[in-house]
């Protein structure tokens, strides 16, 4: 079988629909199939990325024989490929983690979980890979619906409320994006992103601006920009732990990807980058400040996530090559580290009803492995050497310095101090307080530990030797900024 | 070998000189105070008799080796300071180690003795001693400030830190520092009042309050050594002041006259004053004396 990017979409989608069928054969297959799929996706990621990097090409995949710009095409470039590889790898690790998660959940629930899980992966990967804007919207919807359902997975009141808020705001997002696409179509007459990129410069600036605003707000909701991110804290808190990891690591990255693709590739409005920096700074500052006042662990992590995404937006907003490099590096780091934080945090507050931070007092002695990993994640996300987070923070600051944005540097560093305060407060409670809470602890199962350990190793190794991955990211950055290359690669396929 | 022998003899001679003069001054003080209080008072050589008596007493107890060493520290400080202070402005008599040290060294050496004594007093465990020590040290913070200010003013104005250098410069410019920088002089005199621990700054020894403070547990040979050290030290301080402010003395007679004149200032001032409390003493030094010291510094800077 020839390996092609279509597998990324086809396999998970098929798996999602076939899981219930396989489930009738053997209950365990339900848990197993997603793992196999993700493992395969990670495998092909390696192959395709090698191909793309060594041959310096972009793989364009045509669907259903209709060549662009009339048909839908998938674009596997260094940038999109990098993101998709990240998603596959992270998805696989999280699958390992969820294999025995909450074994007391009954079969019907498990089946639904994995179906939705596969749909979520399909949607997120689809958003990144597609070259057609309406297709992007469709995949976004798939992702969104799976996400809504997974948020409410535990069928409790709080989960339902969170899912409802997500649904409400998310629908808003979908509406705005759809509207924008429609107006765009009337203006340029095509849905293919490469062709849109070609035709946009000739658009009426007024229409261009309005469409861009609609996209900005719509994707901004998905990218957790302030003030559109009201849904985030509740959702991340109420969703099951591994799902929170998926949201933070995969879903929001897809949202950011869409926003960035629109701004960098499709449109040519440079001024919006300034707005991106401003909104990113506000997002970051507000989120971190609130995170400091949180008393519940997952909610604190949620706000921290928003803050990091704000930083990513700032980095993209600065717009220079180094800044984009830093932004992609940060996305990678954040996915891995936040993923690990959510995974370990889930076990730390497993039996706690309210999931308060005060339940963590003294847990360091009872769950040394998990607590240690959480501590590692905290140190990494704050940006301390010798962990991976240090490098991404450094690169962003350097990029800002080169652009002479001193105020930006100052704000980022002040916020970093705040981050240190609240993460270290948690660490302090974990290790140095007496355990007075009577909540039971849950030792994670072997596969969960294994999954978290892999993520931790990645963090440490990249921290000590970032060159392993900086080459890839460098290519990804170059690729993103090279609009002409994108247009040419896609449309030249069509010409043939 | 010969020179070393001569040096040591010279040192011993200096010590004897300082001892004699110091004791006599002490006696003179007692006489003066007595006369002011309308008494006859002890004879001027009374201190010598006291010292001999103390040394001939048997000291039967001690509280430990640091207490034993306390007076030794005191006398080491006095004699070492003596070695480094120019007694006469010229000639080889009594010149000792004049050229090996400077004013800053001397200021620190003077503290060595009091700290050593404080340690000795500490081991005795007598709370009176401890109270005396704490008061003494606190007061020292007080009077050191104007003293140091005036010394720094001098060093700045003379552009040297060595005392022999200061004496030379005063000889060259044919005027005493007392008049070249009167503010520094005034500040130093006020500080001197504190340094001598006579009233009104005698709360350290307050006989009726803390049973003589740090020396409460010292008797016999210890007290004798302390008296010796005290008299030598008084001589050192006076000579230092004379050297620095009054151009030094070219012969012994001139030295005696100048130091005695200077000595009468704290004695006379003390005899008519009651006692300051410690915090009053400290803050007293930080007001007018420090003010004069500051003026002295500014004066020196612009001279």
């Amino acid at each position, binding site marked *: 079988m020839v390996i092609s990017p279509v597998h990324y979409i086809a396999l998970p989608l098929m798996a999602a629909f076939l899981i219930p069928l396989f489930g009738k054969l053997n209950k365990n297959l339900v848990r197993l199939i997603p793992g196999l799929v993700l493992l395969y996706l990670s495998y092909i990621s390696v192959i395709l990325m090698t191909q793309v990097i060594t041959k310096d090409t972009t793989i364009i995949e045509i669907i259903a024989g209709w060549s662009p710009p009339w048909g839908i095409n998938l674009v596997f470039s260094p940038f999109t490929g990098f993101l998709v590889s990240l998603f596959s790898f992270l998805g696989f690790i999280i699958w390992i983690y969820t294999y025995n998660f909450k074994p007391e959940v009954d079969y019907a629930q498990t089946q639904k979980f994995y179906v939705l899980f596969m749909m979520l992966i399909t949607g997120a990967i689809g958003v990144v890979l597609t070259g057609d804007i309406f297709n992007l919207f469709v995949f976004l919807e798939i992702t969104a619906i799976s996400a809504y359902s997974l948020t409410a997975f535990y069928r409790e009141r709080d989960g339902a*409320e969170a899912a409802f808020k997500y649904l*409400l705001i998310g629908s808003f997002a979908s509406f*705005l994006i759809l509207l924008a696409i429609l107006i765009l179509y009337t203006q340029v007459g095509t849905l293919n992103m490469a062709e849109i990129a070609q035709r946009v410069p000739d658009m009426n*600036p*007024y229409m261009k601006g309005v469409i*861009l605003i*609609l996209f*900005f707000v719509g994707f901004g*909701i998905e990218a957790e920009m302030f*003030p*559109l991110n009201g849904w985030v804290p509740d959702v991340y808190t109420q969703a099951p732990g591994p799902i929170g990891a998926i949201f933070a690591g995969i879903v929001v990255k897809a949202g950011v990807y869409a926003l960035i693709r629109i701004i960098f590739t499709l449109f040519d*409005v440079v*001024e919006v980058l300034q707005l991106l920096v401003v909104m990113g700074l506000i997002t970051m500052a507000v989120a971190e*400040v609130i995170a400091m*006042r949180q008393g519940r662990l997952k909610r604190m992590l949620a706000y921290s996530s928003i803050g990091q995404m704000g930083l990513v937006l700032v980095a993209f907003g600065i717009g220079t090559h180094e800044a984009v490099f830093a932004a992609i590096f940060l996305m990678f780091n954040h996915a891995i580290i936040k993923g690990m934080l959510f995974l370990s945090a889930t076990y730390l507050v497993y039996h706690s009803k309210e999931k308060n931070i005060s339940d963590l007092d003294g847990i360091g002695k009872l769950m040394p492995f998990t607590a240690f990993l959480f501590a590692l994640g905290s140190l990494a996300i704050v940006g*301390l050497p010798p962990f991976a987070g240090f490098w991404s923070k450094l690169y962003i600051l*350097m990029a*800002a*310095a080169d652009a002479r944005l001193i105020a930006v540097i*100052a704000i980022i*560093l002040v916020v*970093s101090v705040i981050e240190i*305060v609240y993460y*270290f407060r948690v660490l*302090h409670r974990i290790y140095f307080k007496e355990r007075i809470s009577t909540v039971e602890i849950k030792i994670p199962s072997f596969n969960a530990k294994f999954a978290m350990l892999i993520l931790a190793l990645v963090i440490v190794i990249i921290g000590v030797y970032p060159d392993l991955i*900086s080459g890839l990211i460098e290519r990804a950055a170059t690729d993103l900024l090279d609009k002409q290359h994108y247009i040419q690669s896609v449309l030249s396929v069509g010409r043939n | 070998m010969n020179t070393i022998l001569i040096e040591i003899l010279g040192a011993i001679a200096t010590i004897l000189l300082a001892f004699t003069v110091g004791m006599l001054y002490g006696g003179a003080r007692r006489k003066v105070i007595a006369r002011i209080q309308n008494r006859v008072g002890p004879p001027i050589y009374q201190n010598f008799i006291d010292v001999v008596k103390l040394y001939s007493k*048997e*000291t039967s*107890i001690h*509280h430990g080796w640091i207490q034993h060493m306390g*007076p030794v520290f005191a006398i*080491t400080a006095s004699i070492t300071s003596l070695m480094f202070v120019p007694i006469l402005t010229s000639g080889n008599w009594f010149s000792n*180690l004049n050229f090996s*040290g*400077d004013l800053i*060294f001397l200021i*620190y*050496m003077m*503290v060595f003795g009091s*700290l050593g004594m*404080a340690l000795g007093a500490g*081991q005795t*465990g*007598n*709370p009176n001693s401890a109270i005396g*020590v*704490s008061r003494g*040290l606190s007061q020292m913070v*007080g009077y050191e400030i104007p003293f*140091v200010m005036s010394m720094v003013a001098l*060093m*700045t104005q003379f*552009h040297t*830190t*060595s005392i022999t250098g200061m004496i030379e410069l005063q000889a060259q410019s044919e005027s005493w520092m007392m008049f070249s920088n009167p503010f520094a002089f005034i500040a130093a005199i006020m500080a001197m009042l504190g340094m001598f621990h006579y009233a009104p700054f005698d709360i350290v020894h307050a006989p009726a309050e803390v*049973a003589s403070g740090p020396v409460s547990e010292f008797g016999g*040979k210890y007290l004798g050594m302390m008296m010796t050290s005290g008299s030598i030290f008084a001589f050192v301080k006076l000579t230092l002041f004379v050297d620095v402010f009054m151009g030094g003395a070219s012969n012994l007679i001139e030295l005696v006259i100048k130091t005695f004149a200077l000595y009468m200032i704290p004695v006379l001032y003390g005899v008519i004053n009651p006692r300051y409390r410690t*915090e009053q003493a400290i*803050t007293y030094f930080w007001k007018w004396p420090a003010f004069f010291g500051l003026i002295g510094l500014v004066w020196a*800077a612009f001279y």
Partner: protein
Amino acid sequence: MNSLIIILILVFGGAIISFVLNKFLPILLNSFVVLIMLAVSYFFFSIDAAVQLNFEIGGFHLQWGFTSAGYLFGIIVVVLGFLTLLYSTAYMNGKDNLGYFYMNFLFSIGAMLGILMSRDLISLFFFWEIMTWSSYLIVIYSGKDVDRRGLKYMIFSAIGAYSMLMAIVIVYSFIGSFLLEDIFTSIYAIGFGYQLAIAILLMIGFGVKTAIMPVHVWAPEAYAGSPMSFTALFSGALSKMGVFGFALVLFNLVSTQNWLINEVVAWLAAITAVLATFYAVIQTDAKKLLAYSSIAQLGYIIIGLASGTYLGVMAGLFLAVLHAVFKATLFMAVGAVERQVGTTDMTKVTGLIRRMPLTFIATLISIITLAGIPPLGGFVGKWMLYEALITSDHYYLVIMVFLSSTAAFLYSYRILFGMFLGQEEPEYANVKEAPLAMLIPMLVLSAISVFAGTFPGFIIEPIQKAMLVLGFENRIPNIEWYQLSVLFNSWGDKVVLQNIMISVMGVFLVGLAFITIKGYKNQRYVSTKDISSSGEVIQPEDNMTFQMDFYKPFERAIWPLLKRKIDDYYTDFGKGLEALFDFIRRFYSGNGQLYAIYVMAFLVLLLIAGTKYFGF
């Protein structure tokens, strides 16, 4: 393999191994850490001055190698590291989490060596951060009130570190290289405003570790709350990292025309010295007293450096070396008392001199050195400092230093009297002398203090080489270190240390002989209960101890200065921030419809007012 790498691997590897070792073979832990440190010392002292390491990582060019300045401080780190580790083996006996303790201890030492061998700013920052969090982990190791202590330390360290980072990225964006030599040569090409900003940011970063006002508030609790063996290293070596940084910045980054920065820094340090000394005087806990004293001494060092003259810088560096020596000894002594007696509260512990005589001697020598009294080493440093300040017309600074030094006598006496002298209490009748592993480091360091008093040459020689790196020409002739026993200042005045020592020792011995021999046979020792008390007979149960409110009169005299601590300002500021954050938090009210309204409002806002961002 490059000896730099060997040293780092030994230390960092040793750290991780000791953590693991503690889980499996705790018995071997003590010997293991001492051996590791011996190995590191061996490699360090046998290092060739020209050894360098250049490599690329993450797209940056890093360079490692010991400059003479780094080597000087490296000596302090290695020697102190070894001695404090030796001391720890006895001091930490019986405490738990030893593996964690030693791991972070070794990490700190390794990070310090890394900082000193960094010739580029990225490595410097990298190791600086490692030093920060490893020392943080020990600061919060034990004791009560750990949150405040740890939090303050972490916040200030973070502020300092991030100021440094900001300066580093700005420098890089202008100069294009992180290498220190490139930066030192090209810094003057940058605009003056940026130069100033970079210098100030770096000084904030280094100032935190040096505990200069106003970023000193973490120090008293951190020093007092950590285990004493670590505090000896913390105050002795770690604070010197800040001094090292200051030296680099003040002499290489701040152009000589910019005397204003030097003056400001010197005055800040002077105020720190005076106020910290005053606070030290009124303490009742020996650990806190030493902590404040450390802050004050660091102030002297910075004044020396900031004076900018040859003698001043030499004084500052000399005091830095000596401070490491005597402060470590003092913390070790207090730790010894803590271990043998159980408390360091000076209102409770007294009269230990006969029970712990060697500890007392070590403390005595260190205190004399601290106070700067001749003939010990501290006087040399103080003398040079005063001379430097006077000859460079900094009269008022001299007064401040004198004021602080004189007040230092107070707490110097207090710590001796508080723990060793005074009344002997029956509950301490069975206290034993500290174990050998604790005594040896203290006595070795005391010997160094004594030796440095007459022959300061052996310290001054490496200092001179370090000063060459900082840009000062050598002014002392090339003579052997043991010949260097005369101190000069720029006006030609001198102090002959040998004569001082001869005079002091001579008189002391004669006097001691005299007073001992006289009446020797009939003297007997009596306890401290047998004292003169104006006729009353003191019963064994009477309490004659005077330890409370020892300096109450002094405290009353200076109370206006002590009224408001900077710490209070920070606490108020922190509370204000928390209130602000709470207010911001209400934005996320939990009401889904409100969130939807935010979206609408933002959309409308952009449509109306955001046109310039969207190209129309």
